[in-house]
C-alpha cells in the first residue's frame, strides 16, 4: 500500500520476474545479447540512483526480489510473468520453479503465472494440464517471439495456439498476458502487429487478453484493436519508466490509453527487474498530464488507483481491503466503454 496526501493506493505489480542470466546459465551468445539488451533498457530509462550493477542485474535472487517489491516497493501483490527462452539459457531465463515456490509460500503476496509454447503441440498441452493443476494457474504469459528450433516466433491465431487457448478456457486459466517480440514467421510481416490478438480476443470471449507494454512499439495498433474488443487490456510494462526520461511522452501514452481503452483496462507494472517499483509508484502518484496537452483531461486520483492496482485485483480476484476499494469494472466485459472506443466502433 502506498499513501500520499491522505490517499491510499492498493498496488498490484502485474508483471514481475525472477531471472537467471548469469554466465553459468547462458546457452549461447543470444542469451548474453538478451540480458545486455534488458540491461540497456534498465540503464537508459532508470533514474541514476536506482541503476544496478551488471552482475546484480543478471541474478538478484529471491531475497532481493521480496525486499524490492514488498519492503521497499509498496507492492501489495505481484504477478509472475515468466519468459522461458529455453533456446538462450540452459535452465531457462525465468526461474519458474523458484518463482512458483515463492508464490506458494507467500500466497497473499504473489500469484504465479506460468508460460507455455504452443509449438510443443500435443505434449505441451498435456504438460499444460498438469501445470494448471499443480500450480492452480489463473493466468499465463506468452512470448510470441520465443525461439524454438528453426522457428523464431508464432502467432496467437495459429492452429496450435488456438488449441492451447481453448484448453485454457477448460482449465479455468482466464488471463492471457501477451508479450510481442521482434521475430515471427514469416519475417515478411511486422512481428509487433497485434492483429492476431484481435482475432483470438474476438473468438475467445471467456479469456482476458492483457497486451504487455501496451503494444509498444505499436501503441496505435494496440489502441485500435482494444477499442474493438471488450476483453483486451493494456499492461504498462516498459511504458512506465518513460515517466522519468520522457514525461511528456508518458503523458501522451496515458492520455491515448485513457481515451481509447479507458481507465478500467490499464494495468500497472514495473516489469521487475527491468525496473524497480518504488520510484515508479511514487512518480505515478505525483504524475499529472501537463496543462499544455489540452487534448487530454487531467488524470484523476481514482484513475490512478484503478491503474495501480484495482484493475489487476479484479482480474485476479484479489482480496482488496475495504478501505482501499473503489467501484471498478475491470474483468467485466459489459462496462461503459472508453470515449475513443465508442466513437471508433461507430465510425
Amino acid at each position, binding site marked *: 500500500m502506498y499513501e500520499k496526501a491522505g490517499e491510499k493506493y492498493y498496488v498490484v505489480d502485474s508483471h514481475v520476474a525472477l531471472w537467471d542470466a548469469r554466465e553459468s546459465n547462458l546457452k549461447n*551468445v*543470444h542469451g548474453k*545479447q*538478451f540480458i*545486455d*539488451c534488458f540491461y*540497456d*533498457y534498465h*540503464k*537508459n*530509462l532508470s533514474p541514476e540512483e536506482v541503476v544496478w550493477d551488471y552482475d546484480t542485474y543478471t541474478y538478484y535472487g529471491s531475497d532481493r526480489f521480496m525486499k524490492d517489491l514488498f519492503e521497499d516497493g509498496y507492492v501489495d501483490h505481484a504477478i509472475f510473468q515468466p519468459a522461458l527462452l529455453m533456446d538462450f539459457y540452459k535452465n531457462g531465463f525465468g526461474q519458474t520453479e523458484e518463482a512458483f515456490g515463492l508464490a506458494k509460500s507467500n500466497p497473499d503476496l504473489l500469484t504465479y503465472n506460468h508460460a507455455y509454447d504452443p509449438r510443443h503441440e500435443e505434449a505441451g498441452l498435456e504438460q499444460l494440464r498438469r501445470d494448471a493443476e499443480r500450480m492452480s494457474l489463473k493466468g499465463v504469459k506468452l512470448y510470441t517471439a520465443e525461439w524454438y528450433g*528453426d522457428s*523464431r516466433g508464432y502467432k496467437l491465431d495459429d492452429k496450435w495456439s488456438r488449441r492451447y487457448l481453448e484448453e485454457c478456457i477448460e482449465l479455468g486459466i482466464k488471463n492471457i498476458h501477451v508479450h510481442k*517480440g*521482434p*521475430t515471427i*514467421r*514469416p*519475417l*515478411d*510481416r*511486422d*512481428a*509487433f502487429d497485434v492483429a492476431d490478438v484481435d482475432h483470438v480476443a474476438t473468438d475467445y470471449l471467456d479469456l482476458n487478453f492483457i497486451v504487455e507494454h501496451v503494444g*509498444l*512499439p*505499436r*501503441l*496505435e495498433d494496440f*489502441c*485500435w484493436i482494444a477499442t474493438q474488443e471488450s476483453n483486451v487490456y493494456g499492461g504498462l510494462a516498459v511504458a512506465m519508466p*518513460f515517466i522519468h*526520461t*520522457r514525461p511528456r*511522452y508518458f503523458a*501522451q*501514452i496515458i492520455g*491515448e490509453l485513457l*481515451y*481509447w481503452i479507458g481507465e478500467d483496462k490499464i494495468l500497472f507494472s514495473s516489469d521487475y527487474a527491468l525496473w524497480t517499483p518504488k520510484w515508479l509508484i511514487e512518480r505515478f502518484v505525483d504524475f499529472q498530464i501537463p496543462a499544455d496537452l489540452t*487534448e487530454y483531461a487531467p488524470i484523476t486520483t481514482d484513475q490512478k488507483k484503478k491503474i495501480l492496482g484495482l484493475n489487476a485485483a479484479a482480474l485476479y480476484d484479489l482480496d482488496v481491503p475495504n478501505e482501499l476499494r473503489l467501484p471498478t469494472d475491470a474483468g467485466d466485459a459489459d462496462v461503459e466503454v472508453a470515449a*475513443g472506443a465508442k*466513437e*471508433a466502433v461507430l*465510425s
Partner: protein
Amino acid sequence: MTVLAMSLEAEVMAALATVIDPELDEPITDLGFVRSVHIDDVGVSVHLRLPTSFCSPNFAYLMASDAQDALRFVEGVGRIKVLLDDHHDSDKINSGLAAEAGYVGTFGQEADDSLDELRLTFQRKAHTAAMERCVAAVLKDTDLAVEDAHRLLLGHLPGGGHKDALLRRRADIGLGIGPEEPVLVDETGAPIPAEAVPMRLRFAKAVRISIEGNSHFCRGLLATRYSDSEAGDMSTRITNTRFARRAS
C-alpha cells in the same frame, strides 16, 4: 553555372541519408545507425549499428540492403560492403548482403515472399503521421474548424518542413502531390468524408505519437548501448585512405 564537386565521402553520406528507418521514418544517418564509413582504393565499407541486438531482423535487413542499393548510385565508389554489427542476425544478414542473395535468399525458410508489404505498411503510417502534423498545425494557427478540414487542399498548406515531408510521404505511396489534391485522404488517396474526419485525425495522432515515441526510445537505447565503446558520440566515423594516398 559552376558545378561544385562533392567529395566522395559526402556523396556516400548523402546516399546513406536516403535510407530511411521504416518504423521511425527518419534517415539512418540522423539516427546514428551508420557507425563508420571507410573508403579505400578498392571501394567503400559501411558498418551499421542498431539500438539493440534484438531489433527486428526484417527491418534490420531492409535498412542494410537499402544502404547497399543506395551506394550503387555513387559513381566511382568501387566495391560496396555493407555490414550490420552486433545484431543477433548479423552473420546471416551480412552473408546475405555479401552474396547479394536478396531477402528470401538471406532468410531462407523464414521468408515467404518479400518485404514490400511491410515497407508499404510503414510508408502508410508515415504518411498518416505527416498528414496529421500538417492538419493539426493549420487547425491551431488558423480559424479553420475541424468540420471544414475535409476541404483543405495541398495548395492551402503553408510551405515548410511539414508540407515537404507530407509531399514526400504521399509520393512514396503513389498519391498525387498537386495543389488541388485534398490533404485528408486515406491510404488509397480517397478523400475522407467530413463526418469521419475527427475520428481519423484522432487515430492519426496516435500513429504520430507512436512513431515519435519509438524514435526517442531508439535514440536513447543506441546512446546507452554504445556509450562506453564510442565515447557517447553517435556520429559516423569516416575514413578515406584513397584520397590521402593520391594526395601524397
